[in-house]
């Protein structure tokens, strides 16, 4: 009973590893920190993201807590790794490229920056999991908006 290739693509070792041992797990407090809660009510996935924005609008530091499926938690963990220290310009590109990666719509402009996140390409074959993969990302977009409104 061999596992299907699609399934192996979806749950690559790196992804399972991130879901089991999430990086940047925890909270951030203090000035300049924005906290956003996101959820996928139908599946019950939940995420809390804390972002400390840099002066230029980039991400100085980022942490998260959450519960949910391997895809949502791994995506959050991998996202924080990539985002930490990213400037505003790159941040926007990264978000766009990631969405293109998991949906298969649009083109990825900067493969290098995406790095490991490109592994989440396997989600394309599982359209109903796109909202799992993008949960943390939507929280960050919301944080960017909140920051924008605050300043």
């Amino acid at each position: 009973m061999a596992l299907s290739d699609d399934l192996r693509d979806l749950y690559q070792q790196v992804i399972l590893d991130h879901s089991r041992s999430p990086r940047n797990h925890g909270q951030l407090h203090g000035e300049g920190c924005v906290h956003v809660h996101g959820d996928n009510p139908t599946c019950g996935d939940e995420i809390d993201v804390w972002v400390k924005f840099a002066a230029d609008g980039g991400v100085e530091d980022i942490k998260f807590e959450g519960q949910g499926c391997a895809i949502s938690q791994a995506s959050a963990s991998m996202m924080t790794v990539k985002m930490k220290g990213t400037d505003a310009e790159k941040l926007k590109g990264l978000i766009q490229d990631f969405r293109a990666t998991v949906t298969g719509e649009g083109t990825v402009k900067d493969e290098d920056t995406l790095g490991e996140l490109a592994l989440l390409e396997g989600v394309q074959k599982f359209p109903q999991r796109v909202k799992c993969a993008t949960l943390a990302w939507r929280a960050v977009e919301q944080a960017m908006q909140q920051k924008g409104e605050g300043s």
Partner: protein
Amino acid sequence: MTDLSHLRADFPILHQQVCGHPLVYFDNAATSQKPRQVIDALVHYYEHDNANVHRGLHELSNRSTANFEAVRKKVARFIGAEHEEEIIFTRGSTEGINLVAQAWSAQHLKAGDVVVITGMEHHSDIVSWQLAVERCGATLKHVPVLDDGTLDISVLDSLLATEPVKMLACVHISNSLGTINPVKEICAKARARGVATLIDGAQAVGHVPVNVRDIGCDFYVFSGHKMCAPTGIGGLYGRLETLNSMQPWHGGGEMIETVTLERSTYKAAPHRFEAGTPDIAGVIGLGAAIDYLESVGLENIQAHGRELTLYAMEKLNALPGLRLLGPPAPADRASLAGFTLACAHPHDLVEFANTQGLALRGGHHCTQPLMKRFKAPGTTRASFYFYNTQAEVDRMIDILNQAIAFFS
């Protein structure tokens, strides 16, 4: 074990490959599959008899009407109602519950009254009553669920003794835990206090013998699609005098006697509550489903389900990191198993199973408060029906073992 595997031949959908593996369909609590006999009844209806009911005098309309009303009689007999007029056709359990929560409440529920539900209700029985109490200023209270997945009846007793309770709504069989509630005992307690009762039989009708008169409830709802009938059809039982004490729910054709532009008068139950063209083919299909289930035998269906669940529970309990929710004794539960696995979230598990042809369901199963109660982000649920086999359970255990190896 009660062997009903020859009946699989009646279900065309079961004989297919999913992701290169034979389909194992264990999502029966969400919806059941349909036998050839029910599909044929639909086709026959559309190829021979299709016409609107009640309003015609021509042959097709007379045939449709006679067949349609014959199913009402059949449903009444099937669930033990005294009069066929006590059966209202609905889209399913949800519509039936909303009909009661709206039309019964309009007449019988007012500010200060209390409605009691339980901690294991389906969202349909929670949200409709939330909306109902909000409309009139009543209050919603609930009977909590104990660790073993049964109701804390002592809380029900004290609510009935101390609160101005007007309605008690309770699920017959929990779709998440599999618990079979002692609805007869519960309804007797309510009746002793003059409290009306609504039993949600979505998981019960067609799965265990149901007799509404024996249960002693005022209302009882069920969904056809969970008992081999088409989607879009179900039933609400209501005691005749209670139904006729209620004002109409929806306005439209079939429910009126005379209409002027100023005011209208209404028919008695059941037609008072069936405005507009009903799902005629759905009703015909429901009749065919009842015929089919009776030919199999409700006792056989129940026995088979119990045996399969016992078998599955033993195997599941042996898996590492698996926590089974609901009553520990299979005799107290219906044929489903909801569980969590330490190493994998339900959605990952269901996704994994699917690539092996196994259809499980993962999530909150429309019982979010119950999930919170058991501190689970959701569960994975395997739910069986009479066409499922021991070999399919073995296959599920195999796949779960692989999943554990994969995700750990």
